[in-house]
């Protein structure tokens, strides 16, 4: 009988992982909550286990998932990103149940997931860091600590959930008054999202570039990096567009950052795949931010330029294999850009478009194009999960070729039903600064014109709109 691996996730990443599982000739086991019953990840799996009615609580229910793995005889669990991916208790529960957790050890996750411990490890290893606080004390004491820190470093300051990540649980604070107001809100949101209300502060680096390094380490102590990614284009600290490698021209600096990342990974006894995130200020000083102990949404861009299948490698490493390639084998070829096509209305502050049915889904293809998605024509987007529909990743020899390919793909991508970020992205890929590769985290704020677009339906859509109206009214109101 084939070995089975359970995928403890949903949406596009579940499918991404199943593809690697199937290519390794294992069987993929899906789990799902009731609102996800029509999700394509279930159909692609060999078998599927309904965890419960959810929403979101069953994907976070360690007990149920371990039970599902045992019930199906899965030998390993891949957590994907989000949900339980960076929950050390989950990794621990797998370890205790004799199921391979595809990721670092629970201890590493625990250490790095706690931003305060992580900062301590990095400080000892001599990794450059942004000034910050330990966890704030509970209640009014914590507020007072925060105000003292603010007095020393000045605003703006980031208020972060200690167990957050991926842009979640982060708030920008610009005044004492706001600090007082936001600390309790952040605590309650952190409690709801991560079951831990700890928060801490970090000095804000103004308009930095967000550069991260993909690292991979086996259990024998070999740690290598797969180059950089730039994730500077974000909204509300959520990444929208990611590119690899970073467009910073100083190759020596990038190499130094990569070496620092390897050093950081080694300092934390890291195994499996992970990401070391840095902020780079306008003077090209770089600061360690955090290590994400999971596969990143944007791992595809690194795969495109290195040729390394990161998820496949993750599985093999977790199952005890050593790395089958060395740092010298890794060469970065060309450029890759990934865009997260979300069901959101950028013109209405990215209001999510959940609950709508995808009536038309026509995707582009061709040379250098990769799609990681899970929606299909007729699919109704659940309101209770995130709004990511599909990741569009393109690869090209030069930056310009890659941007042009991306533009072509966006022009040929047709999704009807929910509003999407496609027309907004089309503006971005035609923006002179983006085309030059010149952007940092302030990109959206400094380019408000990107939000000015009209959605232009195609001719068939326009004509059928008139036919629908003639049919509905029993006459053509524009011809009377």
């Amino acid at each position, binding site marked *: 009988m084939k070995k089975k691996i359970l995928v403890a996730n949903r949406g596009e990443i579940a499918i991404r992982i199943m593809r690697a599982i199937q290519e390794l000739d294992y069987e993929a086991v899906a789990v799902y909550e009731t609102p996800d019953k029509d999700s394509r990840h279930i159909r692609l799996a060999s078998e599927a286990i309904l965890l419960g009615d959810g929403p979101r609580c069953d994907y976070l229910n360690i007990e149920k998932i371990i039970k599902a793995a045992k019930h199906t005889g899965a030998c390993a669990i891949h957590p994907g990103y989000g949900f339980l991916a960076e929950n050390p208790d989950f990794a621990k529960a797998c370890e205790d149940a004799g199921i391979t957790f595809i990721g670092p050890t629970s201890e590493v996750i625990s250490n790095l997931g706690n931003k305060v411990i992580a900062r301590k490890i990095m400080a000892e290893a001599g990794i450059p860091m942004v000034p910050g606080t330990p966890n704030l004390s509970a209640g009014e004491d914590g507020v007072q600590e925060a105000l003292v820190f603010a007095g020393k470093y000045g605003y703006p300051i980031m208020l972060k959930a200690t167990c957050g990540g991926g842009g979640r649980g982060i708030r920008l604070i610009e005044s004492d008054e706001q600090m007082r107001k936001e600390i309790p809100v952040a605590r309650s949101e952190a409690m709801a999202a991560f079951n831990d209300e700890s928060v801490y502060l970090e000095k804000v680096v103004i308009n930095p570039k967000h550069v991260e390094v993909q690292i991979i380490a086996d259990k024998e102590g070999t740690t290598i990096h797969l180059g950089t990614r730039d994730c500077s284009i974000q909204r509300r600290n959520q990444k929208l567009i990611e590119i690899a490698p970073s467009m910073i021209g100083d190759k020596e600096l990038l190499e130094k950052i990569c070496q620092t990342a390897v050093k950081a990974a080694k300092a934390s006894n890291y195994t499996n795949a992970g990401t070391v995130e840095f902020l780079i200020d306008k003077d090209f000083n770089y600061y360690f931010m955090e290590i994400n102990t999971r596969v990143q949404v944007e791992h595809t861009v690194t795969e495109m330029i290195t040729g390394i299948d990161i998820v496949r490698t993750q599985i093999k490493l977790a199952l005890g294999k050593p790395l089958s390639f060395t740092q010298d084998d890794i060469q970065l070829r060309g450029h890759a850009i990934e865009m997260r096509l979300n069901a959101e209305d950028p013109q209405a502050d990215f209001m999510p478009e*959940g609950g709508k049915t995808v009536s038309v889904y026509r995707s582009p293809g061709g040379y250098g194009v990769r799609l990681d998605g899970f929606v299909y024509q007729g699919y109704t987007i659940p309101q209770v999960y995130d709004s990511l529909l599909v990741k569009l990743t393109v690869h090209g020899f030069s930056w310009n070729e890659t941007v042009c390919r991306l533009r072509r793909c966006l022009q040929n991508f047709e999704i009807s039903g929910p509003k999407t970020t496609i027309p907004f992205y089309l503006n971005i890929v035609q923006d002179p600064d983006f085309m030059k590769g010149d952007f940092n985290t302030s990109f959206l704020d400094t380019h408000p014109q990107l939000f000015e677009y009209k959605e232009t339906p195609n001719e068939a859509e*326009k004509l059928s709109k008139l036919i629908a109206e003639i049919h509905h009214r029993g006459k053509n109101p524009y011809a009377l």
Partner: protein
Amino acid sequence: MERIIQGMAPSEVVAQLRKADGYYITNTARDLSQSDFKNRILLHTDILAAPSRERAGYFSLEITGGASIHVDILRKQVDPFLKLELLREKMPNTMFQTLCRGVNLFGYRPYPQNVIRFTVREFAKYVDVWRTFDFMNHIPNMQAVFEEVAKAGKINEPCICFSTGPEHTDDFYVKKVKEILDVTGSDIILCIKNHGGLGSPQRIGQLVDAIKQSYPDLPIHYHGHNTDGNDIGRIAAAVINGANIVDASDSSMTGYYGPAPSLTVIQTLKELGYTAVGLDEDAVIETSEVIRDQRQYYAAFESQIKGFQPTVQIHKLPGGAMGSSLEQAAKGGFLDKMPDILHKELPRVQKELGNYWSVTPGSQILWTTAVANVQGGERYGNPSGDLRNLLLGKYGPFPFYQPEEWIYEKVLGADWKTVLEREGGMDEIEDMDLEHERTTLREIIGAEPTDQQLVLYLQHPNDAVNFFKFEEKFGKVYVLPPSIFLHQGKFNEGTSLSFTDHYGKEHVIEIGPSMVNEDGESNVYLNVDHHQRIYSFAPEAQEGVVVATVLSKEEIQTLAKNGDIRAPFAGNICEISVKEGQEVAAGEQVAMMEAMKMQTPVVSAIAGIVTTISVKVGDAIKPGAKIAKVDIDE
């Protein structure tokens, strides 16, 4: 051989007409559409007819002008310029003809000189023959058009409008022809515009002969309507007496008020020994066969009253006005008074108002005055603004005699003499600032307008803008056949409609079910190119929208300023932060909403007291749903 080909110089065309042995035919498709189908014949049908009309070898195809430009943008939702461009592709050899109302262009009131010239210049890029008339036969009213047509190297075809009565003598008309030739020179075609189909064959024959006696080299184009069923007789008499071109159209579409059938003209004159020069009879027949099937889809636009109207000789209403006046009478509930209006009052009004020519816009003045006189009780007691302008001489001088003083008094008031002295005579219409108009249009449509768009905007500002918006929304709809565009009633479920769009792409649309949801909103399901699409219509909405209609962001903000707190997006209520009766400050949180993992506080925009809370924790609500009400504390 003797066929006249698009692109020939006016002098060549005129020379060819002079030497040809026989007569030519203009296919007045525009007039057919206007007089018998309320101008609704679609470009789709004209495109179907184009190949055989091209082969038929007409002198010209009258396909634009008159009211058609306005109806193109208002009811057919087609760009009048694009129409000409597309037909030109299919009909490279056939000259296109227009009907122009002189200073009134394609509208009802005089335009400034620079607008006239700009409009003529733009249309002259597509239009070869310019039939221009003035309802008062006041030649200066046509001068600007004559000049611009000549400048563009196109053919001028000035009209003398024809009518009957003691003043309408051959001498009068020959004198008018001289007035025309004095300003245009001799390389023109003269049109006898018999828009009502008035007079007997003999009368038309005499008139043609009289003009030819004075101007033997002047090519004459006879235009008539078949309202009394006898235009074939007048056409034949005109040709026998030397007319060079006559008007007719495709028999399968001819009706009661417009042009006579072309094949009948050809057959009748053949027996009399006159050849239709360059004409391919088979192609004429084929055109009728090709478009015959389309007629059923235009049935709603044909006159509700059938039959020829020989009484036109009494009331003199021109072709197009017949159908619309009967319709107006039917809608206004005075159909029973029509004999009185048409046969008694209208002839009386015509005589009282100077016996001028009953054609646009003069025919409308006569008609509304006659209706008002019968309906209103007191004759001339309720004069229209246009009647007032007519009496003030704004359209030009009365050709024969002025109305009697009592009419002036009724219309202009007791001090009519002073009014006439002060306001009488034709106005100098000031030129428009075209660049200013262009800027205005740019602001309205949000893009640099083309010259063609500006021309349409200058003719009919509101309707042109509505058309531009329509096209942006619904695309180039001329590709839809009348069976779709003019469809009456719902399509049957499962009906499959196919058409090729403007860009050459074939589409198939299948009609699916329609459902009404609990909000009264109708959802129409269509399969468009094998992909399902849903179009939602609010109960009273005027247009199709893809998404359900909800309160806009602005509407929600406006309500918020009145203390009516609505959900800004779809999501769940995860916290209610206030209690009913509690005081809140402006900016204070009343609830927390969560959607797709993001928590967003909902705040009160005003300070006051929470009077109502409409939700509870865990509620999934739609955008615009009521959350709470805050009243200002007084």
